[in-house]
């Protein structure tokens, strides 16, 4: 019979897509909750894993959980899945809720699943399972927030509002921390992703202070968040090797106005060590009398000055009694004054002898959203000043507001080279030798602003000249002039 082409009827046109949709759904493609995560903390490491949803239950790969904790091996034998962690054996059966671990039976919250040789266990009740499989005690599992603590890893903290003038909120941790500090109008959020922070005795604390109003502790999706409600800009400063985080009211100076303003700000109060300013509520008009200045939050600081080394890290020994860290700090203070005298608002990350990790430096600098980041170093070798940019090549920003940590500097390299050339030209005008180079130097690669590292050496063979106030002043002045010359380009890149 010859095949005759006929136009589809309306019923066929509707029925075919519906049938396809039903067929697609009937395949039972599992829903994957990509945004759900679980975080595991152990004395050796802290890591985060994706959580997968199956039949209304959250699941996680058991081998993925155990691998960072010790030696693990798994073998599939039909529906059975045998696991060995260190010297402990466990056996699971696909579709069953009972597991045999070291001869004991443990009932899982949902059936064990075997998918392509990968053993999935329910997140619910994971703490008891991990305790049995690893033989570690204690294992604490915050099931609602999916935070698993294997062994004695807890980091605890206390909150204390000190009635200084102005009052400060002091957070004291039992181990060093490096939270992500984010600012929103009226709030400062400290997010702890890698630290096994445990809840304080009271999740909510209300303070008797009009500026630092309250602190709220919350956990969720593998992280801990401390939200401080504030009615004015705050400075966050680290001390005690990262164990103490102090939130204090920012100095009420016009220095916080945008740097492009023609106004010459007052010389600001010296900032505390490792400080970064965080904004207050936009509605507040009393703190500085300039509400719009708060709208852009941390963008008020045009330049972030990072005095290299500090605390336990002395840097180069320029002489027996002169560590690099002290010279860096001295230069940083000179540069702060020179920038401020030219209408450039600036922030010193480290204004005391404290230890800051490279990650903390980059994180603090990024939180301030500066137009330029300047790290300062000093050396006995060489003559004059060397201005370094990152060694990485330029690449356009293709990631929107989210930058990969390792290559965060890439979109800013061209502007950084421009700024370095400008600084070098100005230094030469001050009769100071200057070279522009690039170097494998952290944390330049992790900064989301044009980043320079400036290494200052003695102008001649006489080392004491390196610390001579006149020389430091002259170098700082040249650097500040160089920054001013490219101010428009730097501002355009923010």
């Amino acid at each position: 019979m010859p095949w005759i082409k006929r136009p589809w009827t309306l019923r066929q046109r509707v029925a075919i897509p519906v049938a396809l949709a039903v067929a697609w759904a009937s395949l039972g493609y599992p829903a994957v909750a990509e945004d759900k995560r679980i975080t595991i903390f152990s004395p050796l490491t802290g890591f985060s894993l994706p959580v997968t949803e199956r039949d209304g239950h959250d699941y996680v790969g058991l081998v993925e959980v155990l691998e960072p904790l010790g030696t693990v091996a798994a073998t599939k034998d039909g529906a059975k899945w045998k696991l060995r962690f260190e010297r402990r054996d466990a056996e699971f059966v696909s579709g069953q809720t009972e597991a045999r671990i070291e001869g004991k039976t443990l009932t899982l919250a949902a059936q064990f699943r075997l998918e392509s040789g990968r053993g999935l266990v329910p997140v619910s009740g994971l703490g008891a399972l991990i305790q049995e499989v690893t033989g570690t005690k204690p294992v604490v599992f915050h099931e609602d927030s999916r935070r698993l603590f294997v062994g004695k890893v807890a980091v605890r903290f206390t909150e204390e509002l000190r009635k200084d003038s102005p009052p400060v909120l002091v957070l004291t941790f039992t181990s060093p921390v490096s939270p992500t500090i984010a600012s929103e109008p009226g709030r400062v959020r400290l997010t702890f992703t890698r630290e096994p922070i445990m809840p304080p005795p009271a999740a909510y604390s209300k303070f008797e202070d009009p500026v630092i109003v309250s602190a709220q502790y919350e956990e969720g999706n593998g992280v801990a968040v401390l939200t401080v409600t504030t009615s004015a800009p705050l400075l966050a400063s680290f001390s005690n090797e990262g164990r103490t985080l102090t939130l204090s009211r920012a100095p009420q100076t016009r220095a916080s106005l945008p740097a492009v303003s023609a106004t010459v700000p007052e010389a600001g109060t010296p900032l505390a060590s490792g400080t970064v300013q965080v904004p207050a509520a936009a509605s507040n008009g009393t703190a500085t009398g300039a509400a719009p200045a708060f709208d852009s939050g941390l963008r008020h600081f045009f330049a972030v000055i990072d005095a290299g080394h500090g605390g336990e890290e002395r840097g180069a020994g320029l002489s027996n009694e002169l560590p690099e860290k002290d010279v860096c700090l001295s230069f940083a203070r000179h540069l702060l004054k020179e920038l401020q005298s030219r209408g450039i608002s600036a922030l010193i990350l480290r204004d005391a002898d404290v230890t800051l990790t490279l990650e903390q430096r980059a994180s603090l600098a990024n939180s301030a959203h500066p137009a330029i980041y300047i790290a300062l170093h000093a050396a006995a070798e060489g003559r004059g000043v060397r201005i370094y940019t990152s060694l990485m090549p330029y690449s356009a920003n293709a990631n929107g507001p989210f930058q990969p940590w390792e290559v965060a500097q890439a979109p800013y390299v061209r502007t950084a080279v421009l700024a370095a050339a400008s600084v070098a030209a100005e230094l030469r005008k001050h009769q100071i030798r200057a070279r522009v180079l690039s170097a494998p130097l952290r944390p330049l690669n992790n900064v989301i602003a044009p980043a320079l590292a400036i290494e200052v050496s003695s102008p001649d063979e006489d080392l004491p000249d390196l610390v001579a106030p006149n020389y430091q002043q002259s170098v700082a002045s040249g650097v500040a002039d160089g920054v001013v010359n490219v101010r428009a380009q730097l501002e355009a890149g923010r």
Partner: protein
Amino acid sequence: MIPRHLKIGVAVLLAAVLGLSGYMWRLKRHAARAPLAVEPGHVAPPPTGPKEQVTLYVAYDDPGILVSRGASIALPQGRQERAQEVLQALLARYLEEDSSHPLPAGSEIRNVYLVDPGMAVIDANAALADRHRSGVLVEELTVISLVQTLSANVPGINRVKILVDGKERETLAGHADLTNLFDTANVQQVAERLKAVQ
């Protein structure tokens, strides 16, 4: 009566025993008089093969530059061994008394591994890093000198990782970042800039 041939056999054997005893006593005396041999450390066998012309990127602390210098050294056949030999030649310069860029005594390149197509791993010993002078320029000169010398003499290398005693290290001596791979194209640009005093 003992047969004659047996008597002769015993006599020959006795003579042989006496002769060998004397020879052994002499050997023992000779060994006792010989000076004690010094146990060598890690002494690599001298490279065999004809001398070849290589380019070393030599650092000069004053005025902080990198200069390409030709050198004629005996190179082994293997690519990996050649890479190691070239870097040893560079280090030998830095360990000389009047070096332009002194490195700590005992500095060595333990191994060079050509692991992946285009990737090399330089494994320096702890003496090189632990007692290296600290500073951005002085550390950069060491790192760029090593990487550039390697890539200039061993074709096909485009990424280099530097380890210290087989382990990853954050910085060489507080400044130069060793956590990342060095892209040889970027390093070559830096080496070009380090050639000139601006």
